[in-house]
């Protein structure tokens, strides 16, 4: 069976974008009981709207209820779970086995998926969590491809595997670096990413770190395009993309790339070609440097980022399509600096990337040479049909 492609969304617009570009399911956070407090801006009505939209595309909505709650955090949980079930949410993602059992009992229409924060790395642990009503396990990021293969054959539990995005360098649910450094609890959505800070390293009182390249635990992001064919053969149920804080453009590029890759492999197309195509597509996303995580080996120095501060954000994404007009012009929402005569790509769901040269641009009917006010609406001419919500970026190499 073809695996599910599971995408993150920080708001309703991003949820819809992910679904339009081919995500089979989207996970998002509500206002409460979820990590990534800033990314979690879904009111219940937004969740209901996301579910309604997803149904049109035969997709599903999952909600993260993945905080590791203290007693003081638990108030209102039952009401919230019932409300999620009523919204038509297909599953909740939890890090608490109490919440897992409770949800199964009072809101049985929702599946319970166990978060990677529990760091499950073997089939015996998976067997243990069955008794808590868990329907799917998100494996720890620390498992190798070979281990995934044996876990998958030893367990009938549906498995979810991270395939793309940021990685905790530590066993995620057990990291209190942020608690120590900033009094912010990673398990309650407050992670300050203290692992990515810079540290001096001493051995017996003598500094052994390089002052020009201090010690850091910053992990490169995960990129698993090479591993997709194997993971598909292993019968993994769901491929998860990380990044509820990521932009709509990032979600678009990443979902589009993996959607096309999974479909190509499913249809028996040449794997190498499909992977290379996906790699080129992904290079256009705002990726930090990437690695294959634990899939093939224990991560070494090349899996880490040292002496880097920037996120390596590209400026390639320039606009969104708003609407097309009978006069042949298209209104676009400007997101980055854009001069005329630029060669551009259009990303539309289900289509290959289409390119054109921007010949002219109009502000309220007046021709202009360059767009440099983000969020301004301008008109342009595009020599083929586009849809509202399509993405425009500088042409890929």
């Amino acid at each position, binding site marked *: 069976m073809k695996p599910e492609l599971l995408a993150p969304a920080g708001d309703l617009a991003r949820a819809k974008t992910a679904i339009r570009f081919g995500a089979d399911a989207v996970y998002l956070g509500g206002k409460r009981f979820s990590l990534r407090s*800033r990314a979690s801006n879904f009111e219940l009505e937004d969740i209901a709207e996301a579910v309604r939209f997803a149904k049109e595309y035969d997709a599903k909505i999952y909600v993260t209820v993945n905080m*590791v*709650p*203290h*007693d*003081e*955090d*638990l108030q209102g949980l039952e009401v919230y779970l019932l409300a999620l079930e009523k919204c038509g949410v297909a599953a909740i993602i939890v890090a*608490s*086995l*109490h919440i897992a*059992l*409770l949800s199964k009992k009072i809101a049985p229409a929702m599946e319970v998926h166990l978060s990677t924060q*529990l*760091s499950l*790395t*073997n*089939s*015996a*642990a998976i*067997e*243990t*969590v069955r008794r808590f009503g868990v329907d799917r396990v998100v494996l720890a990021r*620390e*498992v190798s491809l070979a*281990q995934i293969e044996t876990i998958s054959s*030893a367990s009938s539990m549906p498995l979810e595997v991270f395939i793309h995005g940021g990685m905790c*360098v*530590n*066993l995620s649910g*057990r*990291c*209190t*670096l942020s*608690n*120590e*450094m*900033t*009094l*912010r*609890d990673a*398990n309650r959505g*407050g992670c*300050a990413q203290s*692992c990515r*800070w*810079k*540290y*001096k*390293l*001493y051995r017996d009182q003598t500094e*052994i770190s390089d002052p020009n*390249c201090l*010690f850091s*635990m910053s992990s490169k992001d995960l990129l698993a395009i090479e591993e997709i064919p194997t993971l598909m053969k292993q019968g993994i149920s769901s491929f998860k993309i990380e990044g509820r804080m990521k932009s709509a453009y990032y979600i678009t590029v990443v979902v589009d790339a993996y959607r096309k890759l999974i479909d190509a492999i499913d249809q028996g197309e040449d794997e190498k070609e499909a992977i290379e195509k996906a790699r080129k597509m992904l290079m256009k996303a705002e990726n930090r440097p990437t690695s294959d995580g634990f899939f093939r080996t*224990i991560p*070494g*120095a090349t899996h*880490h980022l*040292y002496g880097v501060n920037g996120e390596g954000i590209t400026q390639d994404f320039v606009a969104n399509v708003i609407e097309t007009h009978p006069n042949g012009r298209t209104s676009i929402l400007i997101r980055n600096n854009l001069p005329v005569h630029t060669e551009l790509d259009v990303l539309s769901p289900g289509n290959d990337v289409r390119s054109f040269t921007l010949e002219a641009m109009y502000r309220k009917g007046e021709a202009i040479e360059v767009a440099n006010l983000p969020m301004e609406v301008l008109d342009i001419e595009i020599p083929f049909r586009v849809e509202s919500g399509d993405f425009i970026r500088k042409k890929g190499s």
Partner: protein
Amino acid sequence: MRLLSILRSIEHMQALKDAGVDGIVLGVEGFSYRSPLYDLEQIKEVVDRAKSLGVSTYLHCNRMLDEEEIIPALTLIQTIDALGVDGILFQDLAYVTLCEQAKANLVRIYAPEAILTSSPEVRTMLENGVDHVMVAKELTLDEVLKIAGENPKKVGVFGFGHLPMSVSRRPLVKNYLDEIKKDRSLADGFGLRLQEEKRAFLYPILEEDKETTIFQDRLFCVLPELTKLQANDVAFVLADDVFVEEGMLTAFIHSAHNRMAQREDDFMERYAHVVTSGYFYKKTNLTKEGN
């Protein structure tokens, strides 16, 4: 309330017993980290000596298991059960299933160091295959007392030692030494400290075969709160010895034993400058927005 301690060496057992320890906790080769490791023969020797001293023995199976370690872990459980070990402290939920499969008589203590942060969570575990739990280290004293009070004689707490802050399955120090082209052997042993560039603290960092752990710089010590924990039906307090100077662990057990018998001593006066109350009086519920 029982006093448990990591066993630094077999020779150390008598001193711990004399100090008032009720149970000793042993690291075992292949399944533990951060603790001194013992092989099965040594474990047998410890169990026999502990029995004659009237002390319980627990295995500290704190490594998360890889799939290929499941069968060896099952064999280990069967073996230690036959040796007369009293129980295991574990982080990996696999041990619940493995103990059931082995029909072992071991007391099962789920000690994930985080995760167990609420009373319902603890109760859920106790109703599903776990005999005791050790609650998360980042709880306040009030939270610990509430959870322990609601689950009497079932809850253990970390009582003494450097609190671990993070565990990675990556060789973080060796990787860094590779990056700056220094000798990897500098990563070995107990001599390493990390200092965040804007902070004064020196965090001990320990790199072992499969795990790298970073600890708080100060020693957590539960002595001032011990009688409150006792009054609230805490089941046990565990003392650790990693990065702890020789003699201090035994002194802690001795002092804890005294305090539980309402006898005064001067441990806190002697060590006030190096110990801390951890998160007991420090909530860590701030968010990115700072509220």
